[in-house]
């Protein structure tokens, strides 16, 4: 059992939790993820590692409530325990595996969107701990749904915030902000890391391809076991099929087939929608609505 030591509401249905998980805390690295299963009947849900404390044996996770599985996770309070918490899974961030001296020569820009801000945080924190200053963009639709801004400000060299509606910081999305930094503010970057909704990563990668900046994205597709056994998380990357859980989760953003990945992401949409209705309202929906069959 894995005890919840802290629970905090961030914004926009996004929650942060500290979990007692000494084995994971001891060995995890920025860029990796965990799989959480609340109880006997729960789903195995892949979640981002946002932070960790090796000495205290604590792993910080951040998740957004989107379906039945995450709704169930959110019901747990401080002092409760999740039945299963396994990891770290996937590979560490490509950048932190590079020699620090090499990294110091790079100009790195992190672009985060929504709940994707959480996996960026430990990478930027790691960079600061190793004396590497990096730029970070946090993009959000509007001010109220932005997360981890203060935490990120403490570890980033420069933090840029962008909102679609202009309610806070730069008016525009992540791509607009990149264009502004590179086009108007004379910034140059040798590397971009984009983590967020697939649609955001798709457009950031499209832009950076035009700008000629190598770009890493972190994929979070549907998964079951997370150890390479099921192949549910497969992605087309260039002319190869890759498993996000064992080959990723990071990939070359210029090679990922995002359109296919987004279609695969929607595979269980009608099943999930029905499950959510059952969860919220009981047996009220029996098909025939035209949205599901």
């Amino acid at each position, binding site marked *: 059992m894995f005890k919840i030591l802290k629970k905090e509401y961030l914004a926009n249905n996004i929650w942060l939790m500290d979990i007692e998980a000494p084995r994971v805390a001891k060995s995890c690295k920025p860029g990796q993820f965990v799989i959480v299963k609340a109880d006997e*009947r729960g789903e195995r849900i892949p979640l981002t590692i946002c932070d960790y404390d090796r000495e205290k044996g604590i792993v910080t996770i951040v998740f957004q409530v989107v379906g039945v599985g995450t709704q169930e996770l959110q019901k747990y309070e401080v002092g409760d325990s999740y039945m299963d918490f396994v990891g770290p899974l996937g590979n560490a961030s490509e950048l932190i595996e590079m020699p620090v001296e090499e990294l110091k020569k790079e100009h790195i820009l992190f672009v985060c969107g929504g709940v994707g801000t959480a996996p960026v945080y430990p990478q930027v924190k790691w960079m600061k701990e190793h004396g590497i200053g990096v730029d970070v963009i946090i993009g959000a639709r509007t001010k109220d749904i932005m997360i981890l801004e203060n935490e990120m400000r403490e570890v980033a060299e420069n933090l840029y915030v962008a909102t679609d509606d202009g309610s806070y910081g730069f008016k525009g999305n992540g791509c607009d902000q990149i264009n502004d930094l590179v086009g108007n503010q004379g910034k140059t970057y040798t590397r971009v890391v984009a983590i967020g909704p697939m649609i955001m990563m798709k457009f950031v990668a499209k832009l950076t391809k035009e700008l000629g900046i190598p770009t890493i994205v972190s994929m979070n597709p549907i998964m*079951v076991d997370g*150890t390479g*056994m*099921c*192949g549910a998380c497969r992605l087309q990357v260039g002319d190869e099929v890759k498993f996000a859980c064992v080959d990723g989760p990071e990939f070359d953003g210029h090679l990922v087939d995002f359109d296919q990945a987004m279609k695969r992401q929607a*595979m269980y949409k009608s099943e999930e929608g029905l499950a959510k209705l059952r969860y919220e309202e009981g047996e009220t929906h029996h098909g025939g609505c035209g949205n599901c069959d």
Partner: protein
Amino acid sequence: MEVDVLKRIPVREQDPKVRATNFEEVCLGYNKEEAEAEATRCLQCKNPQCVKGCPVNIDIPGFIKEVGEGNVEGAYHVIGKYSALPAVCGRVCPQESQCEAKCIRGIKGDPVSIGKLERYVADTAREMGIKPEKAESLNGKKVAVIGSGPAGLTCAGDLAKLGYEVTIFEALHKAGGVLSYGIPEFRLPKTRVVDAEIENVKSLGVKIETNVVIGKSTTVDELLNEEGFDAVFIGSGAGLPRFMGIPGENANGVFSANEYLTRSNLMKASCEDYDTPIIAGKKVAVVGGGNVAMDAARTALRLGAEVHIVYRRSEEELPARVEEVHHAKEEGIIFDLLTNPTQIFTDDAGNVTGMECIRMELGEPDESGRRRPVEVKGSEFTIAVDTVIMSLGTSPNPLISSTTEGLDINKRKCIVAEETNGQTSKAKVYAGGDAVTGAATVILAMGAGKAAAKGIDEFLRK
């Protein structure tokens, strides 16, 4: 009960029409009267061939004699000397090509139903509350076992009986490996059989820690150097599912058999009160002809689909057990033989709408000795399916081999280990089961787990 010595006592099964709609076990097993009658057919050979056909060399005439005398407890302890999982083996071992293939009764008539008798003993012993015999005292040595499938459970059970303190590390949230995630309920009941056998192994003193991925959460070297284990056995299983590499294979509705079976068996996706979803499919093609393909097909059928097995060779070459093919046919699975997929079609949303196949014919024998399937030019045709399940075997998982210093792998990326004692290229590290051989059977993995337990014991007693 009257016995014709040339004919085996038939075993009762659920009616095919009924069982096609439920997940209850297909085979109902022998009762006391049937088992004792079948036991009388054993010739009690002085030089028993059946024992030679068994990968773990169970004293088969010995346990059958006890069954004949009505002593189930005695029979259980005879088997227990050789096998930690008799209720599993009695169900999923390919007896027809092992012990029963060698039975002298088989020369003129039916071989003795060894598998069904083993199952009877294990099930009856469980109902009677008989437990395996535990070691009298611990010997002070610790062994780590990676993976709680058939190889790991067997190795752990044998070592515990010898007085070792054994901890099994399991990557998933539930113990059992392929017995839990792979083989369906209707062939191997989970709570009644698998969980009970795992409890028996635990009753020998074996600890099981779930949610630990060796190679990620910790490593083989850390187990030896930091966690104080004197030896490690790797029984991590097969690994990554293979796909064909044909166009459309990443479409929504194309699954590996591993994924489909894991959702259904381990995650219990077809149960209303479990959260994991599964797309049942209305018309399903299962590509492949092994036991896993049969399991996936029969699962899809029970979830309500029309199911086709698509296999590139002919019926004779089907690698699945004859019993599984027979059961699948009885239940209404359609076999599209000498047929090979060439591409998968999708709609705009990326969902499968059909699969193009080509007819095959058999040519000259290949390296496997089976006749090589050759495409019949211009014979492409399309079958309308909404779900495709790829059951083409697996390739080894690199998680452990890539994180363990000095552990050699072969060109197929399987861990290299001695067949007789499981010793790998690294001191104190042993391996067996699918991680070494590539995908094989439950009993072969158990045989390897057993050999490694012996190897570890010999090494640690030095």
